[in-house]
């Protein structure tokens, strides 16, 4: 179960996911799917939508979610463009994600059991009975120099303010913006190359979102995409213009 935010500023209760694996597994389980490339491709759009929503809310940790999104997009692209050849490294990344997700699922289930039984039937130790008249026992620590040193140690080991990491979220182009831009350019240019589409984007996240936008349009049938060889540029065309029927 995702933890729910208690921030009064959100009028609508938005489930807040602590990490990307939690969000991903939630999406897979919601559809009652097993963890594999097919199910992951299926949840990619929703995952991206959630992440773009997180960006709009400027939630912390969004950067971690975007890192995982890159792998998810690889899976998605492979499922939409079977001709797409993946490098060994990419294949590994995908396998690793599936692996981590399956392992995480086991612990998540185990965690549910623990949450259910936690504190339900406590076992108690004996209550501490205060000695009536404790005898004063001194030792090597009961002097000012040892105790002030101990105090300094305590201060040194204090956690640095808040432990919760506050990752700086960089502004990444939203999915919608990217799709709009794509359509506009197709109208104008009829044919463009993927590298042109993203050439002004320096952020990796924008490239990812741009790529998803292309894939999305392919799925909707509004453009045609082709890639001659891997690492080659992807050619995008408006459908119905009888351009080279690459695939």
């Amino acid at each position, binding site marked *: 179960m995702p933890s729910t935010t208690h921030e009064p500023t959100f009028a609508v209760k938005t489930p807040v996911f602590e990490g990307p694996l939690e969000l991903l597994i939630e999406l897979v389980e919601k559809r009652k799917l097993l963890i594999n490339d097919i199910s992951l491709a299926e949840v990619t759009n929703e995952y991206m939508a959630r992440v773009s929503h997180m960006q709009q809310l400027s939630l912390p940790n969004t950067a971690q979610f975007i890192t995982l999104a890159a792998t998810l997009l690889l899976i998605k692209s492979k499922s939409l463009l079977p001709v797409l050849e993946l490098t060994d490294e990419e294949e590994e990344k995908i396998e690793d994600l599936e692996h981590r997700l399956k392992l995480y699922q086991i612990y998540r289930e185990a965690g549910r059991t623990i949450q259910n039984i936690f504190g339900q039937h406590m076992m*108690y130790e004996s209550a501490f009975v205060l000695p009536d008249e404790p005898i004063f026992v001194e030792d090597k*620590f009961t002097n000012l120099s040892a105790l002030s040193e101990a105090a300094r140690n*305590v201060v040194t080991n204090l956690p640095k303010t808040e432990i919760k990491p506050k990752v700086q979220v960089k502004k990444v182009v939203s999915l919608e913006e990217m799709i709009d831009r794509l359509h506009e350019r197709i109208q104008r240019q009829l044919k463009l190359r993927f590298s042109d589409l993203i050439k002004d984007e320096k952020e990796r996240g924008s490239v990812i979102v741009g790529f998803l936008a292309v894939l999305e349009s392919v799925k909707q049938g509004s453009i045609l995409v082709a890639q001659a060889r891997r690492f080659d540029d992807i050619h995008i065309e408006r459908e119905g213009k009888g351009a080279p029927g690459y695939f």
Partner: protein
Amino acid sequence: MELEQHIEAVLFYKAKPVAISWLLKFFATDAENLGNALVSLQQNLSTRGLRLIVSDTKEVQIMTAPEHAEVIERIRRDDLKRDIGSAGAETLAVILYRGPISRIEIDRIRGVNSSFILRNLQIRGLVERVGSESARGYSYQATPALLAHLGIEQKEGLPDYATVATALDNFAATQPEAEDAAT
């Protein structure tokens, strides 16, 4: 018999003499029932390391069996011979510099649970509970005996007092008020 196990758990938990009249009321039972349960408990414990002691004052208590007295005495002496250790010293320092301070605050400062250390410091007469138990547990302060031993009349006289106190105060200010930290 269930009552017997209930009584055993309660006496173990209380770890001190409990009035039979209290047990009667607590378990809402009659003298015969309770008597039978106590006799049975006494019998069952007779072969074990613990005993059920019934006092003239109509109190009952679970204690270690007398044949283990020597072993227990050895532990008691060993325990007192051992020093409080660096974890004990740190806990004691927090109480000295910032006491009276609740257990939860001590735990947060040190990032670990201090219950057992606090017991040891109390047994050694180094710290004592103050006031009554609140939602944050008891508060603790240094005993007069410790202060006299250290020759300290007021906290401000402790080495680096200002630095340590400020650091601990600043830390406390970053901590959530409520108990419900995100676990």
